[in-house]
């Protein structure tokens, strides 16, 4: 693979691949269950449940 082609790919590919990756994984991942940032909500829900 030639260097100019590699440089061109390095400039274009990340944007396209990043968008594709994000949109595909968003659909197949239930983020709310795994993100540590939402654990606070889980705790709040647990407290609400106890109340």
């Amino acid at each position, binding site marked *: 693979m030639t260097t100019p082609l*590699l440089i061109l790919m*390095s400039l274009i*590919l*990340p944007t396209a691949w*990043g968008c594709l990756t*994000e949109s595909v994984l968003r659909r197949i991942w239930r983020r709310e269950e*795994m993100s540590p940032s939402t*654990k606070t909500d889980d705790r709040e829900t647990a407290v609400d449940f106890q109340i």
Partner: protein
Amino acid sequence: MSPELHEFVRLAPLGFAVGAYGTLVGAGGGSILVPLLLLLYPQESPATLTAMSLAVVFFNAYSGTIAYMRMGRIDYYAGTVFSVAGAPGAILGVLLVHAVPRGLFDPVFGFLLIGIGGFLVCSPLGTVHAGDHGPSAVSVRQMRIGAIGSAYIAILSSLLGIGGGIIHVPFLIRVLRMPPHVATATSHFVLTFMALTATGMHVALGEFQTGLGRTMYLAVGVLMGAPLGAAASAKVGGSLIVRLLAGALCLVGLRLLARTF
């Protein structure tokens, strides 16, 4: 003393210092290791030196990720998106480094070190405290920006052999507004897969036919030094240490530039 033992005596303490200091300042080990390797091995190609560094970074990131998993600090969704987004970039970076001659690599790296050093002087990573930016509520748009950014960072970090934590952590904190403790842990998680991908590519291209022993000596030191750095980070204030690191990076950057021009 046999040549192998001589190499071990020289590289294992270096790996230990890089592992301890890199973990202590939370900036990863690659940005410290690559310039030292450039100075130690002036005849080696950038591909060989970055291959060694990325393999060592993998071991360091892997041990850090295990620790962060136990602490429950990793955002697995963001980490998975950024890892998958960065994988092609890590491969591209390895392919690109084979096209870069040593005469170009050294000054580019020198300028990068001075840039990183300047950034760390202005905004030391160690002085950022958890909770400075509130809870992590990364939107879809921010996540997309994070995926694209991670893909570009993967190319740069794989090309330069630095792993990328020193760029990725500020990116996650400043751009995606992640809490610093989540950003550091998630960056380690991403770094593990990026470094593994890049190292696998270097192995496939036969880069470890000469540097495997040296990489292992460094990795032994790093694996011993990283826990020490992690333990010390809880007791030592970060600001002064990071500024000292910044000064050292600037000096090494100037040294590389002086040798080139």
